[in-house]
């Protein structure tokens, strides 16, 4: 069973639809920590502001602990999408500094393009450049939509990058944890293939 964590994220249903399309049989859209504890895989969606998402996730009693247990004790594959990926960082700096989950060392900061003609939000299709070999990642083009970006403390955690007035992190990975800045649920064939690989992934 795949637990898709429901904490009010706007892209919850789109991610759900895409997981089903990618071949997921049993997806539980859930706000129940017990369900997350029992899951074989966990997906954390997220759009909007870092703080609002963090607060909503933390507000679910026992959820972060259940995620922690599933991932760190049982090694269950975990996928964070967009703000769901950004929450993996130590902290986010959108509307003040706020703690993240701290699963992948780094911070989430506003995009400041070196090229002043590059627009923010970074909105649209862009490259996913594989930074290090990872079974989930393929070279290609995916849809991005964000104004803040993940700055990893350890370059070894960066699995893919993209370029928008300078390099930006497109994916972070460590053990059973994968976080993608792009939206696989909105990236047509590229995104659905990515999700299919996640469903098969045995980290």
């Amino acid at each position, binding site marked *: 069973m795949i637990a898709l964590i429901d904490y009010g994220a706007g892209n919850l249903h789109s991610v759900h639809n895409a997981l089903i399309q990618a071949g997921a049989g049993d997806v539980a859209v859930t706000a129940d920590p017990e369900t997350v504890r029992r899951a074989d895989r966990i997906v954390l969606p997220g759009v909007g502001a870092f703080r609002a998402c963090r607060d909503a996730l933390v507000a679910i009693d026992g959820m972060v602990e259940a995620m922690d247990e599933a991932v760190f004790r049982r090694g269950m594959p975990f996928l964070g999408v967009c703000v769901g990926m950004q929450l993996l960082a130590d902290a986010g700096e959108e509307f003040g500094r706020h703690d993240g989950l701290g699963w992948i060392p780094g911070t989430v900061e506003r995009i400041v393009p070196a090229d002043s003609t590059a627009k923010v939000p970074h*909105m649209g299709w*862009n490259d996913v450049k594989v930074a290090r070999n990872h079974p989930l990642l393929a070279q290609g083009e995916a849809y991005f939509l964000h104004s803040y970006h993940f700055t990893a403390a350890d370059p070894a955690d960066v699995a893919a990058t993209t370029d928008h007035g300078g390099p930006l992190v497109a994916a972070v990975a460590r053990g059973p944890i994968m976080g993608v800045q792009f939206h696989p649920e909105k990236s*047509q064939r590229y995104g659905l293939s990515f999700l299919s690989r996640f469903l098969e992934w045995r980290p």
Partner: protein
Amino acid sequence: MTVRTRVIPCLDVANGRVVKGVNFVDLADAGDPVEQARLYDAAGADELCFLDITASHEARGTILDVVRRVAEVCFMPVTVGGGVRTPQDARALLLAGADKVAVNSAAVDRPAVIADIADRFGSQCVVASVDARRVGDGRWEIFTHGGRRATGIDALTHAVRLAELGAGELLVTSMDGDGTRAGYDLALTRAIADAVTVPVVASGGVGTLQHLVDGVVEGHASAVLAASIFHFGQHSIGEAHAALAAAGIAVRTPLLTPPGEGAL
């Protein structure tokens, strides 16, 4: 490479039915927004835009059902505009599966509605519409009611303000150009695109592929929206991408379309 220039087909929907859309004989139901969305998805459109032009307030809910059904079969970003007046309206559309909501006349009446929505759901999902008409040399004014009613508001000032309030994107429509097929108002598009740091979508008046190119090269738009050139089969999404690429503009790599899905 940097982020690609987006090609966005726009479908007008009334009472849950497409009123201006692709008119191909092989479509089982040309009025079904889901069928249309599927075609554009398969054709490699970069995003899709639905404009709800439902007149009666009672029938407003029909667009939610459309969005829900489209989101089940299309895995591309969808913007929905028309009748979005409050954060509650935006929330309903986002939960149904829309990725962005376009706010039109509500932001003319009360610009702060942009901040209300952006604060709750993030700037990335708020598109502010700027519907303008030329009223003098290098001057444009915001018009409402399909371009019939003047507001006295300077379009450039309004656009900058909406971006400052938290709009993540501006949809700039020339009401002079809309429906004329004479091309975008390039001076209007450029004036706004150069004045804001958020992406600008050029809209209104596309009749040829060159107009799309002009929207980017001369209008400085990040995305180009068009309706009739796609809907009536004059050009495909692939041709639009190819024309932009030929002009040196970064677009997505062409899709390798399986046989039978290449109608657009």
